């Protein structure tokens, strides 16, 4: 049984930030959070006695890595925005850009990395930049979660490029302003550092409390809105931010302690988490997209074999003798219309018209014989397999129009005999007709393909839809060649289907479906005994 998701529009199923997280992803996220809490316990408890020295190169490497991952994440999210036009994505992309920019100022100000007292600012600058970084990003996350809520203004209607440029400009301005305050007003700001290594007793009030509260706010906002993969992993990122608070201050309130090093590792984890998820999802989606494209190509190739293509080639074959007949007749008239009619030439023209007429007749005969003669290539095959193949060939169209497919295999059926390729065309044609009949309606779209025993030695296949059904006027002409209700059809599909089925000494007919739609049925000869029940 094949089901398609009726809730999400197809074009957005492939967009990451709309994707619902799977069970495995949720478990992984929970595992990371639990592992984090365990690491927190280890570092503040059993490992708290370990003393580590100050390695200034570490902070340089750490900041560079953070900058690269945050910048790349921002780029990927901006790219998502340009496809999706979701304000929420624009906000979170700006958040990542902001952290990337703040990290640049942070590393310039950090004492002992590029200069003994930092290249810019003074003692408090890098600590305040850390506060800005860890409070403003969660605010971006809150804004992201809230802008998801407002569905009426959710989508950006303007052009993507100016929106991205504006958001980059505003974010850069914000980062520059934060850097300016931390550098120029360093002396006026509350003291967070006693010296380049030790945190002041102010730390819990000016660093710990603000960061913890915005992170909790962000987690709550995301929890209320949790819907997509991105929501889930941002929640994990916020948990990582939150864990940094106690780790920074305990067991020792100073830089280069065990806890402090652990914070950098956790920080890097949180920075690369969304990037990793984005890259993983993009690769997975790419593979799915490739599968869908290949599926579409297979389906198109299969349709080329069916009704309309056959009809088009017949039309071209018939056009040649008809053209010759008309042109020769024109010539014949001209020979007769002369002042001195050329009777010999005119007779010759009529003779050729007769010959071309016979040629056209032979052509028509050979088309009919084509259906007949292929019946000699009969094989015995499993009907359920044929149904599943036809459904997977039409899978893309079924999914596109959000049609629920009911096709339960019937294990009680004997194998049937016939030309497998032709019968697959018949089935695919009937399925495609059903899709077309349902595509125009808003009501539940259900395609039901069933097989059952019929009389003693036959099997019946039914294709039932809940589409527009068949009016009594159309019913009389339905199987006529060239009759169609479709704007893009030639009206050859059903008449060819019937010709194929009748060439199998079987019947194709239809009945109304209840409460609406149509049921097309055709029979096939069984080629062996039914499998024993059980």
């Amino acid at each position, binding site marked *: 049984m094949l089901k398609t998701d009726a809730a999400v529009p197809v074009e957005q199923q492939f967009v990451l930030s709309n994707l619902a997280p799977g069970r495995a992803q949720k478990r992984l996220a929970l595992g990371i959070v639990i592992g984090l809490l365990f690491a927190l316990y280890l570092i503040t408890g059993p490992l708290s006695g370990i003393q580590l020295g100050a390695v200034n190169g570490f902070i340089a490497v750490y900041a560079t890595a953070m900058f690269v991952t945050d910048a790349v994440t921002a780029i990927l999210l901006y790219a998502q925005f340009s496809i999706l036009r979701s304000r929420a994505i624009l906000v979170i992309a700006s958040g990542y850009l902001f952290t990337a920019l703040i990290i640049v100022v942070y590393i310039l100000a950090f004492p002992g990395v590029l200069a003994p007292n930092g290249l810019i600012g003074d003692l408090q600058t890098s600590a305040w930049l850390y506060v800005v970084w860890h409070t403003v990003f969660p605010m971006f996350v809150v804004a992201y979660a809230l802008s998801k809520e407002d569905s009426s203004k959710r989508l950006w209607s303007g052009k993507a490029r100016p929106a991205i440029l504006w958001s980059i400009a505003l974010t850069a301005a914000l980062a520059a302003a934060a850097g300016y305050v931390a550098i120029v007003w360093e002396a006026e700001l509350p003291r967070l550092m006693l010296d380049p290594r030790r945190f002041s007793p102010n730390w819990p009030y000016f660093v710990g409390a603000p960061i913890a509260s915005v992170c909790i706010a962000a987690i709550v906002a995301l929890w209320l809105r949790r819907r997509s993969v991105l929501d889930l992993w941002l929640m994990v990122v916020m948990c990582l931010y939150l864990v940094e608070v106690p780790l920074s201050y305990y067991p020792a309130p100073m830089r280069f302690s065990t806890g402090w090093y652990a914070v950098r590792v956790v920080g890097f984890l949180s920075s690369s988490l969304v990037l990793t998820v984005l890259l993983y999802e993009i690769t997975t989606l790419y593979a799915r997209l490739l599968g869908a494209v290949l599926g579409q190509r297979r389906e198109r190739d299969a349709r080329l074999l069916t009704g309309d293509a056959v009809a088009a080639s017949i039309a*071209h074959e018939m*056009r*040649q*003798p*008809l*053209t*010759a*007949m*008309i*042109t*020769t*007749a*024109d*010539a*014949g008239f*001209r*020979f007769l219309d002369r002042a001195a009619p050329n009777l010999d*030439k005119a007779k*010759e*023209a009529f003779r*050729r018209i007769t*010959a*071309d007429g016979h*040629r056209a007749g032979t052509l028509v005969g050979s088309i009919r014989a084509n259906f007949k003669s292929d019946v000699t290539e009969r094989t015995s095959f499993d009907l359920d397999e044929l149904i599943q193949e036809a459904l997977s060939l039409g899978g893309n169209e079924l999914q596109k129009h959000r049609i629920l497919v009911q096709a339960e295999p019937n294990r009680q059926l004997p194998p049937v005999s016939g030309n497998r390729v032709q019968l697959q065309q018949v089935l695919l044609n009937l399925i495609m007709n059903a899709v077309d009949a349902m595509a125009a309606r808003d009501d539940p779209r259900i395609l039901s393909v069933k097989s059952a025993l019929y009389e003693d030695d036959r099997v019946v296949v039914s294709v039932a839809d809940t589409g527009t059904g068949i009016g009594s006027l159309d019913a009389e002409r339905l199987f006529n060649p060239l009759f169609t209700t479709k704007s893009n059809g030639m009206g050859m599909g059903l008449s060819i289907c019937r010709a194929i089925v009748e060439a199998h000494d079987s019947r194709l007919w239809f009945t109304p479906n209840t409460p609406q739609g149509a049921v097309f049925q055709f029979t096939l000869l069984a080629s062996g005994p039914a499998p024993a029940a059980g």
Partner: protein
Amino acid sequence: MTARPQFFVVAVVDDDQSILQSLEYLLESADYAVRTFASATALLESGDLPQIDCLISDVDMPGIDGFELVRLVHAARPGLPVILVTGYPDRLQRLPSLGGTHPRLFTKPFQGHELLEAVSETLRNAPG
């Protein structure tokens, strides 16, 4: 002053024998001298190219198609009047550039008198 048809030679190229014959008949009824060829290669190898005054060719043929034939013929006989005939009406929308020339294009089946008018018109407008 109308063109005197019997002085003009029209070459017809089509891979379908009955169409080739019907066009030969139609052009004879208008007193043109007709040479028929079952393929583009047959025309190019015949050595008749310098003598013909107008070319009528099918578009969809195996090997060298009508469009390619026009390019090859125009390389040897620039400005030679050409009329193309096709069984696929879609061709009208996808006419490739043929070195700045614009051959008349007819869809099968066509009206005999319209084709003959097109022949005499292109001959009247032909250089030389």
